[in-house]
């Protein structure tokens, strides 16, 4: 009997391949969209993480209190040994010491007199150490507009819009005027190696990026760093893990009362980022939920119609003496098979599509010109464990529910009526 039913299922495309195809498509869209939404929402968080917040950030307790002021006088001293300790204690993380600072960039004329001047947001990062991933993390090489990346001490990058405003070209010298860690006036000369476009006005208005060692020298911050950013090697921010890590790190009782003791904060514990992480998570859940519900309704209907259009066949089987319960059970088994096959196929294809977008991303930098907020120039999907089973909600459950509902008609209708419909 099972062989007979399977033969029928396989030969009748409208009962097997077509429903499997519909379920696969629905599941594929569900999986892909969920990964895409997760990635899209996560990318904005990742952008903020890469530029300023890290997945976790280590600072002195005093620095953390006025973090928005970038108080480098409260920076971590002995940063290199702390960095080494962090690398040992947290092998699953990549650590990046940075100094953020403010200052004036002065462009001189041929005589060495000030020709143009403008306020700059400075970023000291590890550009020159072998194996440093800061260039890749901040997407600097690909953001070059003119010139090249710094390859020796004393070279820096300027945002292109700022360089144009100052009349500075690659190869020109500029002077950074700022204040040292100790509050003295600092002046330091850089040769501009290249100019950058970040794709966000807030950065393009006036940013100077230089090697960490140069910035340390310029601001008299030897073996110091304003902050040490930690990035998960998976490349994705996990709020729970980061909070847990910060909690463990900060639990050292010996640090209480020492305002220069290191303090770790997860991204969501910095400024308004917590609110943003919550909103992102909530919205991505809402969007996914709405889509899953919509897809569930579609597949539910497909299951329902699939059952209803088989009234003729059901009538024949009942007339031949097959019991209603047997007919109903065989319909459910078929729908489980179809739902399962469609869900597995759809999940595989959905994950494949999501993987491509996770790996290569979709470049939207053209649409982000002039944006006043930091926004990623490339949208990537993000595959999470949920994507491996989320498609089974519409794919399997809805299909089976639809069939169950249509199958109830077998019980509700009198056999004679089902039988009569054969003649219709």
């Amino acid at each position, binding site marked *: *009997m099972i062989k*007979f039913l399977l*033969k*029928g299922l396989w*030969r*009748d495309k409208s009962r097997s391949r077509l429903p499997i195809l519909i379920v696969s498509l629905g599941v594929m869209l569900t999986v892909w969209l969920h990964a895409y939404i997760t990635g899209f929402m996560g990318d904005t968080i990742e952008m903020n993480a890469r530029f300023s917040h890290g997945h976790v950030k280590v600072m002195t307790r005093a620095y953390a209190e006025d973090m928005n002021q970038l108080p480098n006088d409260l920076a971590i001293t002995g940063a290199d040994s702390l960095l080494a300790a962090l690398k040992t204690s947290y092998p699953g993380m990549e650590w990046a010491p940075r100094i953020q600072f403010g200052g004036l960039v002065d462009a001189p004329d041929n005589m060495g007199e000030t020709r143009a001047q403008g306020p700059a947001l400075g970023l000291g990062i590890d550009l020159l150490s072998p194996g440093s991933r800061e260039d890749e993390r901040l997407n600097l090489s690909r953001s070059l507009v003119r010139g090249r990346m710094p390859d020796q001490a004393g070279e820096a990058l300027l945002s292109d819009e700022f360089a144009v405003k100052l009349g500075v070209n690659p190869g020109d010298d500029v002077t950074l005027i700022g204040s040292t860690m100790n509050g003295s006036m600092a002046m330091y000369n850089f040769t501009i190696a290249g100019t950058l476009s970040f794709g966000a006005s807030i950065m393009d208005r006036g940013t100077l990026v230089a090697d960490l060692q140069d910035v340390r020298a310029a601001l008299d911050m030897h073996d110091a760093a304003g902050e040490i950013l930690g990035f998960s090697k998976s490349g994705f921010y996990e709020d729970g893990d980061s909070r847990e890590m910060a909690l463990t790190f900060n639990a050292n009782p010996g640090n209480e009362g020492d305002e220069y003791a290191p303090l770790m904060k997860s991204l969501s514990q910095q400024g308004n980022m917590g609110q943003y992480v919550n909103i992102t998570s909530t919205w991505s859940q809402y969007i996914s939920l709405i889509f899953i519900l919509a897809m569930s309704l579609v597949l539910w209907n497909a299951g329902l119609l699939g059952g209803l259009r088989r009234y*003729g*066949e059901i*009538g*024949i089987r*009942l*007339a*031949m*003496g*097959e*019991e*209603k319960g047997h007919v109903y059970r065989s319909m459910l088994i078929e729908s489980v098979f179809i739902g399962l096959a469609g869900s597995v196929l759809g999940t595989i294809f959905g994950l494949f599509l999501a993987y491509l977008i996770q790996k290569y991303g979709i470049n939207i930098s053209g649409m982000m010109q002039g944006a006043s907020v930091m926004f990623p120039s490339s949208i990537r999907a993000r595959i999470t464990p949920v994507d491996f089973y989320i498609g089974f909600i519409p794919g399997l459950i809805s299909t089976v529910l639809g069939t169950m509902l249509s199958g109830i008609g077998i019980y509700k209708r*009198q*056999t*004679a009526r089902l*039988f*009569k419909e*054969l*003649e219709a």
Partner: protein
Amino acid sequence: METTNNIISIRGLYKRFPMGKDEFTALHDINLSFGTGEFAGLIGPSGSGKTTLLNIIGSLDVPTQGEAIVLGRSIGKLSPRESARLRKESLGFIFQSYNLLAVHTVYENVEFPLLLLNYTESERQKMVLDALEWVGLSPKIKSKPPQLSGGECQRVAIARAMVKKPRLVLADEPTANLDAANSHHILQTMEKLNRELKTTFIFATHDEKVISYLKRRIYLLDGRVDNEELTEAI
């Protein structure tokens, strides 16, 4: 007509259907008996109640009042499982529109009732081939219904109804979709099976061709037995 070898006995049978707040009485006080090996027909225009009566005899429906005893079982008192069992073991159905399973071959369509009865594969094979030989369709065992003519489809349906050698075959307008030549062929096939296997055939029809073959004609009008005639001693 009452005989000692009755397989169907209907007494004071009424069938009423709800129609809004009222009821429509499809069958009024039917009293009939059918014996083994009859070739009988319920004849009447549309709405006369012949299909309703056939459905009750086939345990697809139940009487509202009165009694219909088929092969010793009272139709109104059977559970759905017992009704299914009666149909599975003892009844064969032939429909106006054949109602074959389009994706299955002729062989598989005829085999289906035997699968429900759990015959072994070798038993099934013999019985199916025999049934197809009765109806002259042995060369078509691998064909599928869409590849057959209307007459061939109806012959497959007869083979399917007959394969388990049921005691009773119920045929509802079996020639309605067939031309005259095919109708006669089908009816001759059924007449032969009736004669050779002693299977009881009951038709619901208003087709003159079918009526001409019937040995017993029961005329229904407005849900009542209007007249009854025999063309041959039973």
